[in-house]
């Protein structure tokens, strides 16, 4: 049984809503945009875990909060992979205890198990750890600096982290990363600029930029959504190969259930800042339990006009995360909403060993 590389518990990212002067005088309560509102999941070593949801559901914010590219406001993220030396880990634990962020007992238990409490790290150690936890961005047209050569783009993480003994060593590492990302031979690509290569190759440059630090964990945020369908699976295959060769673990973020279906090991369906269903990919796609999952699956266009399936088209658009409905947050759009859904939030119910769903329809309590 592979061990957990990452355990996310009750992760919360709330952004305060700016208030006008008059409103603050009226001393109304501070409101928040609850982008991520209590998300828990774990990712095993060498696993591809996929977060799926509509835009604005908080999937990207979750990915960024794990790497602390946005600061979480609650919950914790525990990481049990390479990144910090034993000495640094115990130093970090001491600092956390001193600042009263954690109890001595918890810190010692984590330390003994080789677990790093990501949220409690100081900035300098977070920067060090981030060398092993990298991100691949969505849009290869926007995320690469058009004025930098591919060499400069891929070498930048080395420069920032002061890695590589000298220029020759850096060049070697960059060439290795480009080669790993499938830009072969690397010499042909190194001195070109982003506009001189195709969309698929651009995304490979983005991947090389993450690989150059030799990470263990990658957050891939919609890495193929901007690419033509004909080259998407090349990039996905590259990512699978890298997992085999380098033992990588992925958090894969997408709105495309079709891609999630063929690529990931387990899936979490997110709605308005919360995971509503989570389980092994095939089980979730073939036997969805949450009404939202069912609807999402039903509207994925089928690449065949002979296949006519019943579509569950939800009315309206997702509500605003600054005004989350009470009870089950999906109830205003749910075709099966019951009175209980409007007042009480359902908690996860396991429907099989690894598959849970947060819905009153599946919960024993409501049936009573």
């Amino acid at each position: 049984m592979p061990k957990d590389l990452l355990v996310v518990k009750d992760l919360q990212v709330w952004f305060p809503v700016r208030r006008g002067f008059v409103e603050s005088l009226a001393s109304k309560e501070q409101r928040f945009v609850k982008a991520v509102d209590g998300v828990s999941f774990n990712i095993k070593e060498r696993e591809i875990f996929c977060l799926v949801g509509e835009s604005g559901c908080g999937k990207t914010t979750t990915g960024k909060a794990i790497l602390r590219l946005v600061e979480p406001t609650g919950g914790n993220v525990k990481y049990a992979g390479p990144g910090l030396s034993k000495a640094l880990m115990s130093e970090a634990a001491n600092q956390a205890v001193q600042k009263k962020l954690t109890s001595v007992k918890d810190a010692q238990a984590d330390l003994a198990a080789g677990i790093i409490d990501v949220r409690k790290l100081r900035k300098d150690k977070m920067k060090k750890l981030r060398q092993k936890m990298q991100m691949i961005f969505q849009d290869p047209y926007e995320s690469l600096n058009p004025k930098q050569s591919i060499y400069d783009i891929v070498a930048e993480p080395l420069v920032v982290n002061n890695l590589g003994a000298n220029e020759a060593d850096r060049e070697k590492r960059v060439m290795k990363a480009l080669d790993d990302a499938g830009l072969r031979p690397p010499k042909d690509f190194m001195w070109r600029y982003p506009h001189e290569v195709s969309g698929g190759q651009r995304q490979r440059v983005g991947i090389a930029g993450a690989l150059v630090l030799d990470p263990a964990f990658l957050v891939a945020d919609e890495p193929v959504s901007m690419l033509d369908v004909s080259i998407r699976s090349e990039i996905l295959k590259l990512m699978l190969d890298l997992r085999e060769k380098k033992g990588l673990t992925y958090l894969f973020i997408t709105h495309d259930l079709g891609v999630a279906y063929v690529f990931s090991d387990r899936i979490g369906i997110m709605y308005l800042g919360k995971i509503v269903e989570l389980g092994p990919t095939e089980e979730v796609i073939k036997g969805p339990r949450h009404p939202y999952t069912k609807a999402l699956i039903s509207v994925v266009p089928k690449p065949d006009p002979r296949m006519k399936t019943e579509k569950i088209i939800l009315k309206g658009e997702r509500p605003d995360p600054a005004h989350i409905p009470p009870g089950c947050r999906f109830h205003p759009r749910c075709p099966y909403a019951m009175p209980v859904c409007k007042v009480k939030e359902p908690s996860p119910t396991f429907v099989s060993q690894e598959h849970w769903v947060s819905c009153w329809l599946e919960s024993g309590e409501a049936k009573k």
Partner: protein
Amino acid sequence: MALLEVNDLRTYFKTQEGTLKAVDGIDFNLEKGQAMGLAGESGCGKTTAALSIMKLLPANGYIAGGKINFMGQDMAKVTGDKLRAIRWRDISIIFQGAMNALNPVKRVGDQIVEPILLHERVDEEVALKRVKELFELVGINPNRIREYPHEFSGGMRQRVMIAMALACRPKLVICDEPTTALDVMIQAQILQLLKNLQSELELAMIIISHDLSVLAETCELLSIMYAGKIVERSSAVEVFANPQHPYTKGLIAAFPNIKGERRMPASIAGNPPNLINPPKGCRFSDRCYMAQAICKEKEPPLIEVLPAHFAACHFVQPRR
């Protein structure tokens, strides 16, 4: 007679490096009330083909040859006031990315009223009444006509665009990637709306998308474009059931099928050719798994392989 007949259309662009042949000899027909999908990778010329029909090409683009026969007029030759009278009254377009296509400082109602007043001798009151009807038709609350585009969500803005395209009761609507920037749920809503409108209003539609699955759900006819040419054309069912061209087969295989087996879809290796100096012979030959010597030499013509099913490949033979 068909509503739209496109014959050997060629649209070129003048660039610093030379003439770019974005559309290089395409043919198709469209009857009243028919929806045709135009599919292909980015840069294959599908948007250029559509813009040529409306004559909305950028300054360096021009129609270098061929005929676009729309309701008895050759759109390739029409200019000036005559052209202006046809645009939006008979042919309208729903642009890619509704966010950028609407004027942010004008109320949506006023934006839709504008073409009605330009094309028809009605007063503003009548036009506004029509806008309200259009809003109802596309599923927006008619009370929202005095709102600005930023007050609408992405899906709603796309509905506004659709209402605007229908303002003068056109016969042909061109939809350029109508759902690309939208979420799956909103995409499903918009596609359903387009389909309903098409049958209710007997609209002819050309839907442009790189996403074959979107076209599979909405169109009766399907044309596959590659590097400025149509390589396969037939009814949508026929193309999916019986693809002839290796490129079409590749595109279909590139889709993950959520209802099918769980496996990684195939990809088409390589990139489309440069259209300033397109290769001799078949333009797909560099990426084709079937390519032989002849493919590098001779360009395959578009032949009728099966009744009303055309493909351009040296290795397909007419079967009757």
